[in-house]
Structures are given as C-alpha cells and as structure tokens.
C-alpha cells in the first residue's frame, strides 16, 4: 500500500499539482470574491489533468501488473486525491485568514472565509468525491463523464449554498453578519463538513472497489 502511494506521488502526479494550491489559494486575497471557486479549481483543473495522465501513460495496465491487490490500487489513488484536496483546502484557509485581516470592514455578498464556510467547502468536495470516484471506477480510465457529473454536483451545491445565504436572513446573519464571529458555531459546521467529507469519501471508496473488481485492463 505504501509502495503504491509512493508510485502515485512520484509517477502519477505531476509536481505542478503540488504547487497549484498555492496559486489557486492566492485567489482568496481577492476581496469579497466567490470563494467556492478557489476550491473548485481543483475539480476543474487538477482532477481531469491528473486522470488524463493516468490514461495516456497506461497506468491501469501498469498498476494491474504489479504484485498488489485491486483494493490497494483504489485505496492509494483515493489517498492521493484526498491529500491534494486537503492541501488545497488548508492553503486556501491560510490565505483566507490573511484576506480577512486585510479587509476587516468588508461587506460580503458571497460567503466570508469563516470556519463555517470551510465546512461547506468540505461538503462540496465530499459530493465531488462521491460522484467522481464511484463513476470513474466503472472503467478506471474514462474520466470525462465522471468529471462532468461530479463538477456539476459540486457546483449545484455551491450555487444552492450561495443562493440560500443571500436569500435567507438567518443564514446570511450566521455566515456574513454578526454570526460570523461566533467561532464555536462555525467550528461545529466545520467539523460537520469534515465528517460528511470523510463519510462520502469512504462510501465512494467501497463503491469504487466493488466496481474496480470487475474492470478489465484493456
């Protein structure tokens, strides 16, 4: 399993994708921007590019020929996805904290980078993972439809959340008004987001293993 992880990190992921979070994260410094996009760039760019790499380099056959179980092949790949997602989120959170200090008086139309918002980002990525990982492992090489559907799912959640936070006064107050300073409440949403993220990713992992067992390395 550890060897597969090394294989993923050294062969599968181009070094550029380890730097990406530091570039996209910097977008948090744009005052009052639509911050969901910062995390969505991972879905828009990193995922399809990474998986195109796996496809063109015949990773499916390469991995299948190694003395490893199919279960471990899936597990290592999901670890790498989660690792990159966490990197994107943590880096964006750091930039977000800087952004809030830079613009303390700003009136936010879209979400303010609070812990509650990051909790929502975890939920968005959870939806992305559940759709992408489970769809991708039907073939383990076709990533187009899985990327499209998972991005659509994540965007729908983001759009719905943004809309609610504008339309609903209580939600507005919680995320952008006086409520945005209530750290305990926000940490609760944050933790809930992490739990949903973990849960959805684990469900995706089990679906992926089940589907990957039937996949043939053509």
């Amino acid at each position: 399993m550890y060897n597969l992880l090394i294989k993923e990190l050294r062969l599968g992921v181009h070094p550029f994708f380890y730097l990406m979070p530091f570039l996209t994260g910097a977008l948090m410094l744009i005052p009052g921007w639509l911050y969901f996009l910062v995390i969505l760039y991972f879905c828009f760019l990193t995922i399809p590019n990474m998986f195109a790499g796996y496809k063109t380099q015949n990773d499916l056959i390469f991995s299948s020929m190694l003395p490893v179980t199919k279960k471990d092949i899936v597990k290592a790949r999901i670890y790498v996805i989660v690792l990159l997602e966490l990197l994107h989120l943590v880096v964006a959170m750091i930039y977000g904290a800087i952004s809030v200090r830079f613009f303390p008086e700003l009136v936010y139309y879209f979400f303010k980078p609070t812990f509650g918002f990051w909790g929502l980002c975890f939920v968005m990525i959870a939806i992305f993972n559940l759709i992408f990982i489970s769809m991708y492992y039907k073939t383990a090489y076709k990533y187009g439809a899985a990327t499209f559907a998972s991005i659509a799912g994540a965007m729908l959640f983001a759009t719905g959340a943004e809309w609610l936070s504008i339309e609903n006064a209580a939600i507005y107050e919680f995320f952008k008004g006086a409520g945005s300073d209530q750290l305990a409440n926000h940490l609760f949403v944050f933790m809930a987001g992490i739990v949903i993220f973990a849960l959805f990713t684990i469900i995706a992992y089990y679906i992926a293993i089940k589907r990957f067992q039937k996949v043939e390395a053509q």
Partner: protein
Amino acid sequence: MLALEINNLNKTYEHFQLKNVSFQLEKGYIMGFIGANGAGKTTTIKSILNLVRMDSGEIQILGKNMAEHEIELKQEIGSAFGDINFYTRSKIKTLTNVIKRFYTHWDDEVYNKYLKKFNLIEDKKIAELSTGMRVKYSLALALSHGAKLLILDEPTSGLDPVARDQLLDIFQELVQDGEISILFSTHITSDLEKCADYITYIHDGQIINSAEKETFIDTYRLLQGKNEDLDKVKQALIAYKTTSFGFTGLIHTKDFDPALDIKASIPNLEEIMIYCSKKESVYV
C-alpha cells in the same frame, strides 16, 4: 515441473471468444505462442496475468493456482507488452526506483549487471529508448526481481532483424540454467524456428496444436502434386492452393498415405500457419 499450465480457459467478448484454451509449459523451456493478428494471443496472455477476467478455466503457475495466489505469483512473473508503454516521459532511474519497491527479491546488483549488459543508460527517458531497448529494460526489471516465468506479448514485433536476433539469443541464455521459463507470443514464425522449444498455435480463439517444436512440425506434411491428383487427397487436406502447375496443400502426417505418388515435404511454421488459417476460410 510445469512453469505454466492452462486448462480450459474460456473468455467471451461480443465479437470474439477464447474457446477451451489449454496448454502447458515445462520449466526451463521457451514456448512460442503463435497466431495471426486477432487470434487471441494477447487475450490469453492477459488472462494468465489476470488483467482480464476469464469466464471459466484454471491457470496454474509454478504449481500454484493463479486465482488463489495472484499477488505471490506476480512476484515470480516478469511480463512485457511489446506495444504498450508506461510512463514514457519518466527516466529509467525514476521508474525503476518506484517499481523495485514492490518486489521482495529485488537485487540491485543483478539489475546493474543487466543495465550494463543491455547498454541501458539510467538517465534516459523511456520515450528515448528504441523498441528493442524497451523490451530489454522490461527484461532487466523482470530478471532483477528474480522472475521465474517470463510472459512476453509480441516482444519481437517492430524490431529490426539484428535487434530481434539479439533478443532471441538473450532468451536462450536465460533458460540455459533451467530455472527460467519463457512464454512469448509472436506472429513472426522465424523467431520460433530460431529459439522456441515448444510451440502453441492459436487460431480464432482456439488452440490448434501445442507441442514440442519438432513434433509440432512433424504433425504436418506439405504436399505438392498435379491438379489431377488433388481429388485423391482433397478430403484429407487441411487446406490447399491450386495454380496452373498443380496444387500445394497441408495435411496431417497421420492422414497422408505415402503410397500415393505425391511429393510430400516437411513444412515450415509459416506454411503451417497459413494453411491452418486458410482452412477456416474454406468452411466459411
């Protein structure tokens, strides 16, 4: 001891079927797996390696069932696909450093020995290697992890005659000690004439014959006669071709009556392959 034993392997696709594929390879020998393009060579090899799931059948490698001991056996197998390349933009060094972690019996000394022997430069990228060098790199990897069975899909296809000859010499060297066995598929019959001990011939998803090379060839006779003699043997012929000078046909040795005044010679593998596949079109 058998290095490889395949019993009644079946695999059905929408437009193609492997039907009861069975053959055996003795330890320490080279088996050539021949067949036309699309005959089922790669599908059989992929089934052996469990890259495709067989519908039914049993595969034993070095005395162990592949389905039950896949991970353990993959430590003992070295494989290469002539036409599929992996991570071609990576350097040999990078790829080896990743691959060697997976093998418990990896030996750096053996690896370096083969790098030198095959003139492989570690700083080169896979994309910069010629087709022959890529096969040699796969062999170096396989031998460095102590593979006892080499399963190679079309390793000689796309190689120039010199590189092919070199590779076949290497195959023969490898099996000399009796520890390593090689199964390699090809549609180039001269490769087999040079180095194979056993030959398995697959046509349209079915094994036509699997035997020691001499026995395999001896199973058939090539007949050449006048057109008026054709009727005497027509029924027994596997397939035949006629020209204004007469006919040429392939027959099973057991079906041939030497008393007939028809010239019989020992065919080469190419002729066997051509006539056996022609048989199919006769029925169609």
